[in-house]
Structure formats: C-alpha cells, structure tokens
C-alpha cells in the first residue's frame, strides 16, 4: 500500500450566492512520505480542496480514501476519530488555545486520543517542543510567544500523535523568510526521517519548488 491518500473524481459546488462549481472532477494520489504542495491563483479552490481532504468538509461528490479506508459517507464521530489519529493540521494562523501553556497545547490532541498516559504524553510533547527549539518556552502561556514561535508550537501540536498525514493551509503565510525556512526544513525533515506525508497549500514558489511534487490548481481543476 503506497498511496496514503486517494481522491477520485471529487466535485464540489457552492450554492450561495449563486451555483458555482468550485472543484471540477479532481483525482490524484499521494504516496507515503511524499511532500506535496498545492499552488494556484487565489480563488482557484486550493483551500476548499484541502478542507475536503482533511475530512472536515463532507459536502462533496466523489470518493476520498485515507490509508486505504474509504472515508466518504462516514459519520462525523468516526471522521473526528480518524482526524485525531491520522491527520495533523497547520494553518496560516496558529489557533493555539490562549489560556493554556505551550506544553498543554501540544498535549491536547494526544490527551484526546488517550493512547498513552499523561506522563508519557508530557514527555513526548517536551521532545517535540525541544526538536522545534522551544523547550524553554514550554511552560509559558501560548499567548505570550512571538508569531514564529507560536507557529512552531502549532506544528509541534500537529505532530504529537505522529499522524500519517500533515496538512497545511499556507503554513508559512504569516512568517518572515527566516521563520519560513525554519518551518520548511522541519517539514522536509519529517518526510525523510519518519516517513510522514505532507500536503501543503502555499503561495511561496520557493517553498513549492523545494517540495517533492507540486499540483497547480486552475479554476477548480488540476493543471497537467
């Protein structure tokens, strides 16, 4: 089983304000350990596609398989469990819980999963923070960190359950060049060292060029 994610003939329309087909019959596969970037003009449907892949948006036609399992038509609770276990998210904005420490923020998805004891989770979260150069920030409230640091905490959080796939919607969109490089290298490292798959939407052509494969979206379709 090489394909970690498969998309077959996916279509999606918005009906508000007028009917508008935002995704037009999209199909592609993503291999294990692949670093895939999605590029395209603003409004071409990249985010919409990523939210479908993420299982958070279930309103589409076609099929979505993750890790060989057909996810189309599954209940919301099942999808939540699958997301928790197999998918990590990084957004343009960090979406950290402001009232918790960085460490606690990183621990939350693992506490939800409940696979390890609290002590093990804490240890693991510390390891992730350390790997991202944030060990000394662990016990600070998330709201007290700089933008680049917050984004790195968000990455640590996305990694805590060792997900199969890490999805990012312009994960470096809010960062300066220096921080963009740091984040990029972290992601690149992950695909090499632990075989995790990355699917990231980006505007940054340098970022895209350095990835394994780039899919370009044009008006809801993949450009060959």
């Amino acid at each position, binding site marked *: 089983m090489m394909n970690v994610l498969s998309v077959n003939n996916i279509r999606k329309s918005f009906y508000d304000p007028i009917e508008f087909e935002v995704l037009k019959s999209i199909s592609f596969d993503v291999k294990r350990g692949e670093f895939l970037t999605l590029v395209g003009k603003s409004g071409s449907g990249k*985010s919409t596609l990523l939210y479908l892949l993420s299982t*958070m948006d279930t309103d589409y036609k076609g099929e979505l398989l993750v890790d060989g399992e057909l996810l189309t038509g599954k209940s919301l*609770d099942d999808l*939540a*469990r*699958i997301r928790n*276990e197999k998918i990590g998210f990084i957004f343009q904005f960090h979406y950290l819980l402001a009232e918790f420490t960085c460490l606690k923020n990183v621990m*939350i*998805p693992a506490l*939800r999963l409940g696979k390890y004891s609290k002590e093990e989770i804490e240890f693991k979260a510390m390891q992730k923070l350390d790997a991202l150069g944030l060990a000394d920030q662990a016990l600070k409230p998330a709201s007290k960190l700089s933008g680049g640091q917050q984004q790195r905490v968000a990455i640590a959080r996305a990694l805590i359950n060792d997900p199969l796939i890490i999805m990012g919607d312009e994960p470096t969109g809010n960062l300066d060049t220096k921080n963009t490089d740091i984040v990029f290298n972290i992601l690149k490292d992950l695909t090499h060292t632990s075989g995790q798959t990355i699917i990231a939407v980006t505007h940054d052509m340098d970022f895209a060029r350095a990835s394994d494969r780039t899919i370009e979206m044009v008006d809801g379709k993949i450009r060959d």
Partner: protein
Amino acid sequence: MNINSDIAKTYTVSGRKQTMVAILGVLLGMAVYMFMNSMNEGFNRTSNESFFKSTPHLRVYSDDKISAPLQELSDAEMIIINPKIVPNTAKINDPQAIANVLMKQSEVKVVVPQVAMNVFYNNGKSQISGKTVGFEPAKGNEMFNIKSFMVQGDFDNLSSVSNGIVIGAGIAAKMNLETGDNLSITSSRGVNRVLKIVGIFQTNNSVEDKTKSYVSLSTAQQLMKESNAFVSDINVNFFEFNKAKDFAAKYSDMFGYKAEDWQAANESYMAASRMRAIVITFVSLTLLLVSGFGIYNILNMTVSQKINDIAILKAMGFRGNDVVRIFVTQAMTVGVIGVALGITLAIVLINIMKHVYVGGDIGYFPIRFEPMIFLRGTIIGLFITFMAGYIPARKAARVDPVSIFRK
C-alpha cells in the same frame, strides 16, 4: 482529569469574574427558593397544628335527611309533597360498633366518639352562646392534645369530677370565672345544669377560646336528654393527616354515614393555603429561572469568545459530544457551587429567622430546615443549570470548523 473537564476548568477559572457573577445568581435564586418554600412549609405546619387542636382529620356523622314521598312510582305524577328534615336523624346507630371497626383499620390512630352541641353559658342575666363537646377525656386529649394548652386546673379532673367542665380562656375572662367556680349552662334541648369548672384552656385561636368548652361524654348525653348510647359524631385521626381524603369515601360506603375529611370540611382554608403555595412556587421558580439565564448568558459569551478554540478542537478530532461536555461541565461547575452556597445561605437565614419572635398567635417565626424542600430545590436548580449550559453547548458542538478557518 479528562481533557474535556480540564478545558472546562481552564475556561471557568480564566473567566473568573463572569463565573463569580453567575455563581452569585444561582446562590441567591437557590437561597430564596429554599427559604421561601421552607417558610411556606412552616406556615402550613403551624396552621395545621393549631387547626388540629379542635378539628379531627375525619368526622363520621349522620347528615340531615330530607323526607321523601313514601312511594315513588315512575309512572305516577308527583303529587304535593312537603319535604322537611326528618327529625332525630342526627344520630348514629350503634356508634360503639362503628368505633370498634374504625379502630381496627391500620391507618387509624385514634377514634373519639363525641357529643357536640350548641349551648348558652349563663352569667346572671347575660348569656354567651358557645359550643360544648363531650367525650371520654383521655381519648379527647389523645386526639386534640388539650393538656398542652391548659392554662389553669387539670384536664384529667374531667373524668373524676362528675359534673366537671373545662372552658376556654375567653369565656373565663368575660364571665370572670376561675377553676373551682360553678357555671350554669343551657343546652340546645333546653336542659339546664350547673357545672363545676375544673380547668381553663387557651389555644391560639381566639374564637375557640371565647366559645368552646369540654365536658365528659355522660354529661353531654344528659344535656342532650339522650341515652348513654348516644353519639353525634365519631372523630377519627390518622397516622398521616394528608391521607384523610383517601379514606373518606371508603368509610361513607362502609358505615352508611357521611365521612368528611378535614380538607373537605374546610374548603376555604384549603383554598387559601393552596393560593399561598402557588404564589410562592411561582415567585421562587421564577428566581431560579432567572439565575439559569445568568449561566446561559456566560456560556453563550464563552462560546462566542472561544469559537476559534472550538474550531481547532474539532479539527484535532474532538467530537460534537466532547464539545458539549466541555461547556456543560463549565455550567455545572457554576451550578454546583451556586447551589451549595445557596443551601448554606438558606440554612443561615432559616436559623436566624427561627429565633425571631413575631408574637400573636404564631410566637416564633415558624420556619425550620426542610430536607424535602432542599432536595427538591437542589434537583430543580441543577436541572436548570444543566439546560442553561446544554443549549449553548449544543450550539458550540455544531460549529463548522471550516467556516471559522476560512475567515
């Protein structure tokens, strides 16, 4: 601690001020609810107590019968009849047998056959009209606890002094009488007798005190010119006075005489206490509901403030139920603390009021700790809290994370 409760706790603590205000709301609503309902319970208890000093739980008596045509023919025309009360029907046949049967019922505590009549107390040329009740003194005391409100003399002497009488303090005051004095009374059947006062009682009901007197059963029978088998009513007390109405119909059927429970006999008294209960229930429930709005309000606010948190939690795999739990836990924390403090405040208030002397017929403020009321209040309070948390929590659970991330 479970991660959902952990998040709930953090939100509760970080919104300290709002949490405090909501707790205060529940506290006050709860305390007022419990206090007012305990007060109502206290009022009912004291008024029932004073009520049962002169009224039995149930009374079996022979209702007046109206004369009917001797023969009723369905195909015949009604000719003139002249309906009248049949004389001598206010009498129970073989009252001792009925009393014996009643005494055997498991629900019955005391049975007191009595002779009641209207009398005049004569004082020279002036007369006071009143009511005399004759029964076996020991049994009468068991039912009405008369000894507890004697102010002079000894109620027991009613059985040893053959022509003894115990009178109300109001009569004694008006006629300037004391224990040991003689009192001439005239019964409704025109019998005149001089009786010896063996005691004076004082209830907290001034009408009773001004009109009522007690004599022995045989004295009463003599005043009525009746044999020693005559009884006008059979009084019954139950172990639980609230059950009286359940047995009234059964006894009526059993004996063929009217059996009337105290509630049926005192409709207006019952209506007044029902009205009081309705008003108090309405006011106290409204207050509880208002405190529920307080909780609803802070949760609604938290949900809109934390909409990003909710979205990311759902993205990370929290189910709708987890989100509901987070916010319901927050509401219940406020509810449980508020209820606990409300109970404490209500107990303090009750203990203060208990020692306030209001005087008159009542004496000390009639209130005490009522476990059932507190239990009921706690259940209602927690239920309202739950609903006040559940409604915004469900709204939070339905947040679509994608719509948040797109902003």
